[in-house]
């Protein structure tokens, strides 16, 4: 995953990583230093023991000077250049050296007296680093102090420290990786509600949800709440704007009627231009009303409309409207079926289709509804002249009236298609067995219906 430097995850992980690295380096350096000291001290302790045994083994004779009463227990003093050396340096006599020193001597600085054991690093006969401990001893019969020194190469110590540092680097490295892993996991887990929030917002934007759902941790719950308020406020503004558009359009209709009626009784250019402009205004009002209507459709989630009562009301209404035409309307099916949406929208869609059918029918209009999977399929058929195949698509275009002589705004079929589309449904036109047009309207069924039907 590519992380932008501005991402929270990057910041948190980078911050934790830097701090962890710094802390582990400091700990590693401190541990190495302490270990080196410990190793040095124990080495010094061994050297001290050897120095003690050298001093104990040494005797002083005023004639012969210093001599050893017996051999030392450490065999490495006997092997040449073994790395373990001793040296006795009287201020006034012959220097005594261990056999291992062969023909070399340890460089001694006799200028300063060393009554206490003194430890320091130096360079050995074969240019190796050595650790030296030295001390001045004054024998009872001698006047000048004798310098005793024991030295050993530090190779072993260095190797031990190196091994330790290696182990520590590996251990601390693993620990660092573990910590960073834990931080990543923690950040991911900690920021997961933000990702959920993002997903929910996406759903709201795409219209799948109308609010942010789910519980959020206390830190971002206020943000989610505020967002929900914003969404609600936005929806409210939108609804209010639509209501205003609708109200304005409706309110304009009465003045339009008055002007239309008055101008109709007059002749002359003024009356003619008034009539033309009124026609434009009437179209605009219709257009924006339809837009306000379709924009408001399908907004309420979780509503359902029982199909049969709605269809029966529409039939009664249309029978009254077409009372003079003697058109019979048959409604089949629909019992226990529910449309997943608002009654208003349902009335608008089926009303327009049934109205169209009644307008064109000779004597009969048939409305059938059945359930197919999760959908309701409505067939609205008439026995009128029907529409040619080529012209079927054209009737959907806004403002298109197939026959200008038949009353109607011509917006009927396009608004049906728009509203059905908002509900995820659709409409198709076909030829009916009755001879006229067959409109096939597909709408989502309410989920409850299947439960009801299964229970039967």
């Amino acid at each position: 995953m590519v992380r932008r430097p501005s991402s929270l995850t990057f910041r948190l992980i980078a911050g934790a990583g830097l701090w962890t690295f710094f802390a582990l380096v400091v700990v590693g350096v401190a541990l190495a230093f302490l270990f080196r000291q410990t190793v040095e001290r124990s080495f010094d302790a061994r050297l001290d023991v050897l120095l003690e045994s050298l001093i104990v083994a040494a005797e002083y004779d005023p004639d012969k000077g210093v001599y050893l009463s017996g051999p030392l227990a450490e065999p490495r003093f006997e092997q040449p250049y073994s790395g373990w050396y001793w040296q006795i340096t009287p201020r006034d006599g012959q220097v005594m050296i261990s056999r291992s020193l062969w023909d070399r001597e340890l460089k001694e600085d006799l200028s300063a007296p060393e009554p206490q054991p003194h430890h320091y690093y130096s360079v050995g006969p074969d240019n190796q680093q050595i650790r030296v401990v030295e001390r001045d001893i004054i024998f009872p019969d001698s006047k000048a102090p004798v310098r005793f020194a024991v030295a050993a190469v530090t190779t072993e110590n260095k190797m031990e420290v190196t091994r330790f540092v290696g182990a520590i680097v590996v251990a601390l490295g693993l620990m660092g990786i573990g910590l960073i892993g834990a931080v990543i996991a923690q950040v991911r887990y900690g920021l997961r509600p933000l990702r959920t929030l993002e997903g929910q917002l996406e759903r709201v934007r795409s219209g799948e949800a109308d609010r942010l759902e789910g519980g959020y941790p206390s830190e971002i719950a206020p943000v989610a709440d505020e967002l929900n308020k914003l969404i609600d406020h936005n929806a409210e503004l939108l609804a209010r704007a639509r209501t205003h558009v609708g109200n304005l359009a409706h309110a304009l209709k009465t003045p339009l009627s008055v002007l239309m009626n008055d101008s109709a009784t007059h002749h002359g250019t003024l009356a003619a231009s008034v009539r033309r402009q009124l026609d434009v205004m009437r179209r605009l009002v219709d257009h924006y009303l339809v837009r306000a209507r379709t924009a408001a459709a399908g907004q309420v989630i979780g509503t359902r409309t029982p199909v049969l009562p709605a269809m029966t009301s529409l039939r009664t209404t249309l029978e009254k409207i077409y009372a003079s035409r003697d058109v019979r309307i048959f409604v089949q099916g629909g019992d226990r079926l529910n449309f997943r949406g608002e009654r208003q929208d349902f009335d608008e869609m089926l009303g327009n289709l049934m109205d169209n059918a009644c307008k064109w029918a000779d004597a009969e209009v048939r409305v059938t509804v059945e359930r197919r999977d999760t959908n309701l399929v409505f067939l609205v058929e008439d026995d009128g002249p029907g529409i040619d195949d080529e012209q079927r698509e054209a009737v959907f275009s806004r403002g298109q009236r197939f026959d200008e002589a038949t009353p109607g705004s011509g917006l009927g079929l396009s608004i049906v298609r728009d509203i059905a589309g908002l509900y995820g449904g659709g409409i198709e036109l076909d030829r009916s067995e009755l001879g006229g047009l067959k409109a096939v309207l597909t709408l989502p069924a309410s989920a409850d219906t299947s439960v009801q039907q299964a229970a039967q």
Partner: protein
Amino acid sequence: MRALVVEDDPDLVRQLSETLRDEGYAVDQATDGEEATYLGEVEPYDVVVLDLGLPVIDGVSVLKSWRGKGRTMPVLILTARGQWSEKVAGFDAGADDYLTKPFQMEELLARIRALIRRAAGHASPVLRCGPVEVDTSSATVVVNGESIKLTGHEYKLLSYLIHHMNKIVSRTELTEHIYDQDFDRDSNTIEVFVGRLRKKLGVDVIKTVRGLGYRMEPDGEAS
């Protein structure tokens, strides 16, 4: 024929009333729901044009109240609200027709005529009573194939009688349906008009039923 226009826009009320009067209707006006409710309850209208967005009481409630009190006159709803759910609500409340603004006056008149005809039980716009033919859509009268010119009041009278042919129509009923609310009613005038009408028609289709009123019958060729 007597009509009630319920509409709160003064200009539209004026237009509707003028047009309807020109067409031979006796017209009363109401500009709010309360007045409309009262007039519809007490006056015998042949047709009502009802706006839905009214002050005081809305149109649907007015209509429901009339129907609840057994008033059966045909009601045409004239409204800006053209949604199907609103139409359904209007018809459910008892409307007989529904016209959406903006409208053509001719269409309104045609629908009103159709409502009156249907209410009286006639299907065709041309009503026949023996040799007398009244074309309600053009307001023309033909007797034995010859066109006859009638004054406004004479036509109103004939139109009401022929809509209710074979039924006895009292003088009071005629007065109520031919004159509007504010007219100074005098039943003697009716007698004068009936006399003139009989003379112009030249056929005896309008019978006097003594003590009750008039009846229009098709078997009038004899005279």
